[in-house]
């Protein structure tokens, strides 16, 4: 069965979609600020997987080529930057509120 259907872009997209959705649900359900951050990392990773899939010559004859990998690299770098800033925010939040529960931070309530 496996041999019959070689790995295609769609397979990768499925994995990306699962990662994306899990990340999103993670963001929506984790009360810990770091948990939310982790959800973000998952979402980004899911998106990265898609870029890689579309840029892979092994999965598709007419691929994006090197562009997919380049953009994936940018995403990784941006994710690192985002993680650094988000962690700083989380620590700041923790310093100011003495908690890491994002539900406690409702200053933006309208």
């Amino acid at each position, binding site marked *: 069965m496996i041999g019959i259907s070689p790995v295609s872009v769609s397979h990768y997209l499925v994995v990306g979609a699962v990662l994306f959705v899990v990340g999103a649900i993670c963001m*929506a359900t984790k009360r810990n600020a770091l948990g939310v951050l982790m959800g973000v990392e998952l979402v980004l990773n899911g998106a990265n997987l898609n870029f890689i899939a579309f840029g892979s010559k092994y999965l598709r004859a007419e691929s994006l080529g090197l562009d997919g990998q380049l953009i994936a690299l940018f995403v990784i770098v941006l994710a690192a930057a985002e993680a650094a800033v988000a962690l700083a925010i989380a620590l700041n939040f923790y310093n100011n509120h003495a908690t890491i529960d994002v539900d406690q931070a409702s200053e933006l309530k*309208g």
Partner: protein
Amino acid sequence: MDPGHSISMLLGWAVVLPLCSFFVILVFGPRMGKAGEHAASLATAAIALASVLSFISLAIWLTSHRPSGASHGEAHALLVSPDASIVVRGQDPHEEGHTTAEPHSESHETEHHGEHASGDHAGVPIHYTNDFSAPGIGGPWVLGEFGSLRLSISYYIDSLTVCMFCMVTFIATLIHVYAMGYMHDELHDWTDPEVTLSNGEKLHRPGRYHRFFQYLSLFCFSMLGLVIAGNIAMVFVFWELVGVCSYFLIGFYVERKSASNAANKAFIVNRVGDFGMILGLLALWTGLGTFSFGDYDYVDSDGEKQAQIGIFTQVREAQSLVHGDGHGENRRMAAPDGMVRWTAKSEIASMVHDHQGLFDNDAEAIAATDAEAAFRTTDWRKNGYGYGLLILAGVGIFCGCVGKSAQFPLHVWLPDAMEGPTPVSALVHSATMVAAGVYLVGRFYPVFTPEVLLIIAIAGVITLFMAATIAITATDIKRVLAYSTVSQLGYMMMALGVGGWLAGMMHLITHAFFKSLLFMGSGSVIHAVHTNEMSEMGGLRKKMPVTAYTMLVGCLAIAGAGVPFIMSLLATGGNHEMLKGLGFSGFYSKDAILEQAYSFMQANDSAFAGVFFLAAAGGAAITAFYMFRMWYLTFAGEPRNQERYDHAHESPPTMYAPLIILSVMAIGVAWSPLQGLVAGSIATLVFLGLFIRCQLGHKAQHAEVEHVAHHDHADDHHHDDHGHDHGHADEHHHHDALPAWLSRLPLALSAVVLGVALIWTIGGFGDITLAGLLGQANPTNDLVGIEGVWLEGWTWPAVHEAHEPNVVVIASIVAIGTAFTGFFLATAMYGLGYLDPAEVRAQFQPVYRFLLNKWWFDELYDLVFIRPTHVVSGWISGIDRNCIDRLIDGLAATVRRFSNFWAWFADGKIVDGFIDGLAAKTFALGLSLRAVQTGRIRQYVMFIVIGAVAIFILISFFWNPTLAG
């Protein structure tokens, strides 16, 4: 330099000097010494210098235009007498060459003189004696051109101008000197006793010494400018300047209600007259197209030399056109071409219409129209075209003069003008303001038609009689003089109106001298006793002899005292002039007026014409009466207010010195040298004798002196002066109060007069008299009797007819008779007390009240003009309030109501409603969306997911697989 040019230069400077003084005082006034005291010196110096210049120009005039001594009595003889020197001068090639460069030079006159002379020899009748290009005509310095109208500054100088200049500047100089003394109160802060402030205190204000002299300078400038003006527009400008100066000066004590009212009254009443004057100006411009009096050449815009024909020449040409020689028969005035054509403009328009298309070009058509119009002008004139316009012009100009000279309908301002300081009254009443009106009538005399002359005469006669009667009852010393002025102005106007140009102008000059004398005398009295009421005075002669006797001279002069026919005893020839007799200056001018009026009565054999003579004669009696009444009430008898009497004192020399000088002028200004010689000799001898006797202490001779003095007291005032003086020898002590030299003054003056008369006679100037000088400018010499066009049967007699012996004898007798009647009546009532004035007053109670209330003129005007005006104003304001205002208010209310509605509806409901609704909706939406903003990050993530799902769903609806490529 030729005489005409020098005269114009000198007089021009005489005009400008007071203006300079005015500006300097205007700018530096308050800084000129303490309280501006040097302003007086400056103003006086300016006018004195102007006076000197005027007299120099008079001398130049006399040497270059020597008048004939025969004066108007032998008008035609004067004109035709070949004056060798002038003719020779006129033929001098050098003079000719010089005059070509000077348009207003002698050459015209000399030529005309020569022409007339030769014309007379050839038996050709003379049309007119005065060629109006002959006098000094200068300028014009054009200010602006409006069509044919050229507004310019120009001058017109003839002997009248020169005489007026001398008179105005001389009197003004004396008044300046007098005012330096009179106005000294203004040198420091001053409390006006007649102004009570609301807090009950008297007004205390800083002195306005410099301002007074500033106005005086402007006044003199205006009057001189008016006299020298060469066109009627310029006259009008100075006319208004005179008016505004009188406004300033009458209202000098502006804090006094009465003074400001009087100033307003003078100004407004004058405006009424000036309205007529403007009409006259318009008529003149319409008909004649120029404002200039005389002819002059000018260079037009094309660079060509053009001749501007002045008003006078245009009028004259019309006369000579119609009447040909016009010599020896009565003539009619005629309208000049311009006025005729203006009136016939509809005919000319139709003519132009007819000519259209008949000619090749416009120039030919215009030429043809001109020719036909010129041809038909004679017919039109015969049909009376343009004559109405000429009358309108005359009446209009006279209206201005009525206002300025305070004639009958508009005389009300002059007595009120007494509110100004007395020097101002003297100036206004003698030399400047009121003289301007008479001067203008005299200047414009050629333009006046018989109809206008009759109006002038009627206005004059009403004025003279009415004002004289009012003066009888006045108790305010200045008011007596004011009505006297009005009356004398009436005399002048009447004289002008009945054809006596020379008489009127002479009276203007002589009156200026004795009226300024009288006013300054009254000012001196007021200065001494601090009241105007004669009932508070009396007996002041002893306190202030100089004032008293100089004023007596004035009274005698205005009454026309003199001895008629006496000169004929001395005269060697049978000259009619010698019928004149010997008297004060007023004697000559008043005689001339009466002669003219009598001559007029004779020429027009109607009762109406006789009114003029009778009124003039009656006026003469009344004049003498009220003048002596004033003198007696003021100076004679017992003091009626002892307190005021005790405080009275003679005025300072700056005030009485002008009085003395003016009194000499008031006596002798109208004399010929022979009269001066006779009177001077008599006076010198008499005063010499008196002086010696006084020195020797022969006071027992007083009775004899008195006898002599009374015998011919009218001869000479010094004589008379001393006569009275010694007549009251028991009160002789007042001499001690005065400087010793004053007792010798009459002698010194008499000697001076004698000396002048001697030089006058011996120096070969025997033919120079005031009458002769003025006669040079006389525009009526040519009038051989004229008739009106609309006034059938009225004749204005020729001037020389007034000098027929039968006229002169009767007029002289009547004149002196009436004068003495008035004098005796006054003496009987007030001087000697034979008649009790109170009884007379009670007897004529209604008349007295009528006169006391000044003929109810103010009340009449109040009733006729002011009240109706108020009523009409009330109506109009009622219409304004009830109709217009209500309409406007209603409109406004409607608009406001509509606006309110519209604001409520459009603004409130639609615009605001929309905006408010939008805001409310946005707010509600915000509120509802606010619930979404929970502030929870995880919910936001949820929303993001929802959004992503929604986008995917949406995309899946519109998904096109081909896009994926």
